């Protein structure tokens, strides 16, 4: 993570003039430069800010390069009458894209796949038994899609939950790795994602060292899996620290 804890958060502005098409990967093409000039194992600078929405119980805004996401958390509030009695709380997640989030104008509709992935990534971290009979709504909106959208949404959502004061075992940090040819590229941008041969997304609770969600696509051999998981766990650890700093800053700021 490039954003140093404590220093003023630096946002990263994408260099729009420099849109070179990445050469199609050859097997041993190791001197290839990533579109934004990062190293293969270098994440984009992360920027988090809590309290982005006033009316929500908690909210957070995250910016990773050109990926911009806003998440609001409402509740816990009474579950709908139609729902059956439940002695644990419910978590309702929704991820949607704005119409202008993607390079081609989209429908701006809900993203069912991401919604269920977000739910699965978070439910293990939230102490649902602390708010029985009630529902917590997590609404995520992708303002700009710049690659690795889902991991950013997940990290941002866990920060928003913390901001809302929902009891959690730990923050959830998420990182994805793309496999391009023989190289593993962490935190891929949109361009890299469209060329990827495989991808891995790992969400974990850094202090508990527990994986809450893990997905693979594409063909992976065992050494690659080991390497990619280690990369992700390391990055999650660092990302967790950045998120923690953001929460601490928000808390100390409100006290003054």
């Amino acid at each position: 993570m490039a954003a140093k804890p404590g220093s003023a958060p630096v946002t990263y502005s994408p260099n729009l003039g420099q849109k070179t098409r990445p050469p199609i990967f050859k097997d041993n093409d190791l001197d290839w430069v990533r579109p934004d000039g990062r190293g293969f194992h270098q994440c984009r600078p992360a920027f988090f800010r809590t309290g982005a929405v006033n009316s929500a119980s908690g909210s957070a805004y995250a910016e990773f390069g050109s990926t911009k996401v806003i998440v609001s958390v409402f509740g816990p509030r009474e579950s709908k009458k139609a729902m059956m009695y439940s002695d644990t709380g419910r978590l309702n997640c929704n991820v949607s894209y704005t119409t202008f989030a993607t390079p081609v104008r989209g429908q701006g509709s809900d993203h069912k796949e991401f919604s269920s992935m977000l739910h699965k990534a978070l439910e293990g971290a939230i102490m649902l038994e602390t708010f029985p009979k009630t529902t917590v709504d997590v609404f995520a909106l992708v303002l700009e899609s710049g690659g690795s959208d889902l991991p950013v949404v997940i990290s941002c959502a866990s920060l928003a939950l913390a901001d809302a004061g929902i009891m959690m075992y730990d923050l959830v940090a998420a990182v994805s790795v793309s496999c391009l040819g023989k190289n593993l590229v962490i935190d891929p941008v949109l361009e890299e994602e469209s060329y990827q041969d495989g991808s891995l997304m790992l969400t974990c609770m850094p202090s508990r060292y527990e994986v809450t969600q893990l997905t693979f696509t594409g063909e992976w051999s065992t050494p690659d899996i080991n390497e990619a998981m280690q990369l992700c766990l390391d990055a999650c650890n660092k990302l967790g620290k950045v998120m923690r700093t953001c929460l601490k800053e928000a808390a100390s700021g409100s006290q003054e």
Partner: protein
Amino acid sequence: MVGLSVGEKHFIQGGIAQDLRSDGRKRLTYRPIYVETGVIPQAHGSARVRLGATDVIASVKAELGKPSALQPDKGNIAIYVDCSPTAAPMFEGRGGEELSTELSVALHRCLLGGKSGAGAGIDPTSLVVVEGKVCWDLYIDGLVISSDGNLLDALAAAIKAALSNTGIPKVDVAADATSDEQPEVNISDEEFLQFDTSGIPVIVTLTKVGRHYIVDATSEEESQMSSAVSISVNRKGHICGLTKRGGVGLDPSIILDMISVAKHVSEQLINKLDSEIAAAEASEEES
């Protein structure tokens, strides 16, 4: 939901801990698998797979379509799963929708590989008739008839069997087609092309109950799970996809251990499935 008494829950958990499950299986034994192919004559290929009381049908339909502008050298493949209310009353109306989407997404991830098509069980370039103009759109539909756990593994097996059963009609393209027009095609109704299905992975779902994990969980055992990891493995022993279900977190080392167990189990499953598919094909030809 499965309603179980406290005693029954203990019985299931205790059995798993002692490596003897309620139906007499060991932790890493599958239920007997039955494959029937060609069950739906209207489809280009179909198969029914039974795994204990879990019963699923997969059908493959192909239609001529246009490849997307971004990937002119690839055909389109779509996987949909439908959970019929005949399987369980909770699938009625929109109740099955969530499970259907989850299964479709998991199958898509496990069988079709990454965006560039690497690691895909079905080679999308083999579906192209004329590059950038005509290709086959492959619609793979899964139907859950009866559900007794481990739907994902059964569906993946059914899809593999259905694809081995699939014959895509041979297409002749009229030679005089000009460059910007949609070329005329002639679909042969006698000659069919078969897919190479040897690369299609199988999915092994490891369900964690207590401190142990089991394969091929029944729905009663699934109700006791803390988390489940579905791993798709191909014949080469490579992992082609992985999804996790269930909220409880897992230690990274356990996941790596699960992957190696899945690889080991998948070898037997692939061999078993291949021989079942071959037997099913043979009996279909006889009749």
